């Protein structure tokens, strides 16, 4: 069987120390993205459990699978959860969600939760789109800009390159930094063109790390142009799968002259975490009758 170098690690997690039954509100956020799906369960606004997996061809099924995996070994069932919010491109297809909220609002809220209230600019580098968001100290969106016209500057583009070069996607970032001198970037406007260029560079004898450096540089340049359109306000945070790619993150930081905040939490769950926080607020609002 052929090795799928693009395939990133799918996993679930729950806090073994927490007692979710003692929580007043158990809220869940489901982010059904174009490439990955996440379910985040919060107990009174604190992260309790989550799952992160690949989105299948069926959005409702992906949402249900992500939630089932997040609930695994927690002793909880869907019936124990008080409120669910769906987000991401498949947000209207989450069968058990009471409300759908855009991923823009959810990523801002999630970044505020994961990186702290100082975050003012969020760059969400998703599977098939890229969003630049300004938010306030409460994680409310003040401005946003999204590019989902093409895969350049997205996770899917990076997956294509990992496959082309037969490099596991988790190793792409570090490998791209292992160059003596930064090579010129490949095409930053189209993944198909970038892939053709990269193939040409390999034929010219470029080593893999140099080609990856060239692609990471192009990706960084692409998203920096998006960010510069709405402006950078510190503090700055990156969410989404590409936030785990040190090669892209360090080049973005260098181009912008701003250091991105770091977090211990998986950057891919930011949207679902924001949705879970919205779910908690909506549940409390419905309970109070306002």
């Amino acid at each position, binding site marked *: 069987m052929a090795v799928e170098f693009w395939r990133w690690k799918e996993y679930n997690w729950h806090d073994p120390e927490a007692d979710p039954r003692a929580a007043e509100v158990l809220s869940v956020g489901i982010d059904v993205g174009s490439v990955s799906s996440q379910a985040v369960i919060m107990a009174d606004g604190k992260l309790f459990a989550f799952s992160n997996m690949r989105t299948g061809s069926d959005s409702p099924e992906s949402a249900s699978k992500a939630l089932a995996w997040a609930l695994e070994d927690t002793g909880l069932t869907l019936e124990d959860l008080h409120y669910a919010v769906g987000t991401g491109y498949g947000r209207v297809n989450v069968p058990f969600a009471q409300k759908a*909220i*855009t991923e823009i609002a959810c990523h801002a809220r999630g970044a505020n939760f994961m990186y702290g209230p100082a975050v003012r600019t969020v760059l969400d580098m998703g599977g098939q789109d890229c969003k630049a968001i300004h938010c306030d100290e409460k994680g409310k969106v003040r*401005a*946003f800009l999204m590019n989902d*016209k093409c895969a350049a500057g997205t996770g899917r583009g990076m997956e294509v390159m990992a496959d082309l070069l037969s490099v596991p996607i988790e190793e792409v970032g570090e490998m791209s930094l292992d160059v003596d001198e930064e090579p010129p970037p490949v095409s930053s406007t189209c993944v198909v063109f970038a892939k053709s260029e990269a193939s040409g560079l390999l034929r010219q004898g470029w080593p893999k790390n140099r080609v990856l450096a060239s692609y990471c540089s192009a990706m960084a340049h692409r998203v920096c142009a998006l960010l510069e359109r709405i402006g950078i306000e510190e503090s700055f945070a990156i969410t989404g799968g590409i936030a785990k790619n040190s090669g892209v993150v360090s080049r973005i930081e260098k181009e912008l002259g701003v250091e991105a905040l770091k977090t211990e939490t998986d950057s891919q769950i930011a949207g679902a975490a924001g949705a879970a926080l919205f779910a908690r607020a909506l549940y409390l609002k419905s309970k109070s009758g306002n």
Partner: protein
Amino acid sequence: MLANYGYTDGSGEYFITVDTDKCVECEGRPCAGACPAGVIEIITDDYDDQVCAVRDEHRKQIKYSCAPCKPASGWKTLPCTDACPHDALTHSW
């Protein structure tokens, strides 16, 4: 909130920006009716405000959807921005 709808591609940047803080003040929202291509719609956003937005189906093609109202087609000003009483709507191109 500044909501930017549109995209960047190899040929340029095509964004319609809605300043929702201004838009929410508007009662009639004549922009939606003024757009001959039906690009603009009124939505309830994530914060429960009624504001105008670019319809989903036009977001990846606004360069073409809005082309009939651009100067090359004989217009001097845009019907949507002309109709907006609060200057809440702008085009980037």
